[in-house]
């Protein structure tokens, strides 16, 4: 397993109430595997993804990346692990508006010596070789998402976590994006996509359903 959750519980304390979002989730993704996590809104899909991607800590349970227990790491170590192993693709792309496409792809590496030309290669790979110097405002939604995918790949992650990757795209660009993600899996990257877009099933190897905080 490249990324794995075991008995993960996530509770939020809000005042007197305790809200349990994940109630003992067991989940894993293999290298080169494309898994979709489906479920209604508010079932904890995004929380699960955040815990898997070390953005959030579980209240109970164990998180493993490539077999290593990463549950108790401090902020610095978790950041380092994210950088080394995890790539994120968000529904709203979250590109930095003042940077060009290439600079956006390079952004995760600027504090560790730059990407050494990898950013340009990745843009070529996602079909944006001729848009390297464009600002996000000059790109369409699908192009932005492809820039975001290239950014997720710049540190050569083992797993890519995508939160509603097609949520803001029309059908055609959504299909393009999913095709691109499928290609990445075939190159050995594990992908977890949380979504309620049924189409993604057509591209994935496996579907998991999350309901009321448990995988069913």
């Amino acid at each position, binding site marked *: 397993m490249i990324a794995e959750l075991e008995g993960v519980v996530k509770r939020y304390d809000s005042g007197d109430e305790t809200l349990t979002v994940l109630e003992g989730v067991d989940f894993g993704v293999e290298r080169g595997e494309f898994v979709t996590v489906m479920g209604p809104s508010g079932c904890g899909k995004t929380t699960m993804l955040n815990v898997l*991607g070390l*953005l959030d800590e579980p209240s109970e349970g164990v998180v493993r990346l490539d077999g290593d227990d990463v549950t108790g790491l401090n*902020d610095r170590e978790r950041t380092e692990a994210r950088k080394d192993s*995890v790539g994120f693709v968000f529904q709203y792309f979250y590109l930095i508006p003042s940077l060009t496409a290439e600079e956006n792809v390079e*952004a995760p590496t600027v504090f560790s010596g730059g990407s050494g030309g990898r950013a340009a290669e990745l843009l070529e790979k996602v079909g944006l070789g001729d848009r390297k110097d464009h600002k996000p405002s000059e790109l369409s939604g699908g192009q932005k998402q492809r820039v975001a995918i290239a950014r997720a790949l710049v540190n050569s992650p083992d797993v890519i976590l995508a939160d509603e990757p097609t949520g803001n795209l029309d059908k055609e660009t959504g299909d393009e994006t999913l095709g691109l993600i499928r290609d990445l899996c075939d190159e050995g990257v594990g992908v977890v996509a949380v979504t309620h877009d049924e189409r993604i099933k057509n591209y994935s190897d496996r579907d998991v359903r999350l309901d009321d905080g448990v995988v069913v």
Partner: protein
Amino acid sequence: MARRNLVRNPLRSGLACFGIVIGVVAIASLGILGFTLQAGFMENMGDTANQVEVTPATETDGPGIGSLTQQTFSDREVRDIRRTAPGAEVTPVKQGRVDLEYGDDPPVPRTAYAVENPGALFEAKQGRVPAVLSGGILVGSRVAESIEVNAGSAVTVDNSSYRVVGILKEEPWTAPVNPNFNIVVPETELRDTGYRRVIIEEDSAEAANATAQEIRETMNRREEVVEVQENSDLIERVQSQQRLLSLFLIAVGSISLFVAGVSILNVMLMSTVERREEIGVLRAVGVQRTSVLKILLAEATLLGFVGGAVGVVISILVGGVINHFMLDNALMVFRPGNLRYVGMALGFAVGISLLSGAYPAWKAANERPVEALRG
């Protein structure tokens, strides 16, 4: 990267910078103003701070002006004074009234001084001041203006003919022997007059002060023989007043820099709130907390530095204008004393910016990426 982030919102960054500019200009200009006032004062005082004037104690026979008798020093007393101030230049001065006649004008009574070495007390602005005055006289600048004599003119003093060897430079009002309205004649002309005062010139104001004390103690031990006047006390007092004034001016200037600091704080807070998601993404993709902190601090410092640099340029211009009007030399602004204030203002600007940037940077860097991305 820091620069680019600032350029993204040029108006806001510009205004924050402008605040710093004003702060720096306020501190530096007020500092320069204070320093220049001081310099101007010292220039006016000239070297009179180093001088001590000794006069005979006034003896009064009774109340009323008529009872004042004009006192002079005996040769013995002059010797005593010389002994108390070894190493200093001691100049006994004779003083009397003479009639000065030039051209066709009727003779006018003038106060005349006579000293053995005029060079010790006077400087010429026209002609020269000889080591010993024999066949000529020196004329104070105001006298020269009023009767229109030049160096080389022939004049008559009490029926003896003399040549004007030099017109004297204007002396500050604090000078103990002020020749502006008077003339200096050979000692032979005032042969029958005693020494009305003795001028002692030391190397420094402190030495002058010490000598003054020494003379008071040794010569006035039994009875009041001499009166001693010196400027060092006065100068010291004025200088400490001016230092206070400078400090006060700088404090006023500092307030504006503090205000500028608050505006940087505001700008940085707003921009971190705006870029919350962006920072969240950077953190998510593996940018360390410290890197985020560094870049935000760099932004704040850059604001402070750019504002400070512009402020320094303006301050030097303003300082040049101040110096031009007060000291007649705009380039005097480049003296170390002034540059110290400029450097201080710049350092203060960068420091304040860094300080103001610290809280927003810390806040942004420590936000959990999950929270930031949730919107």
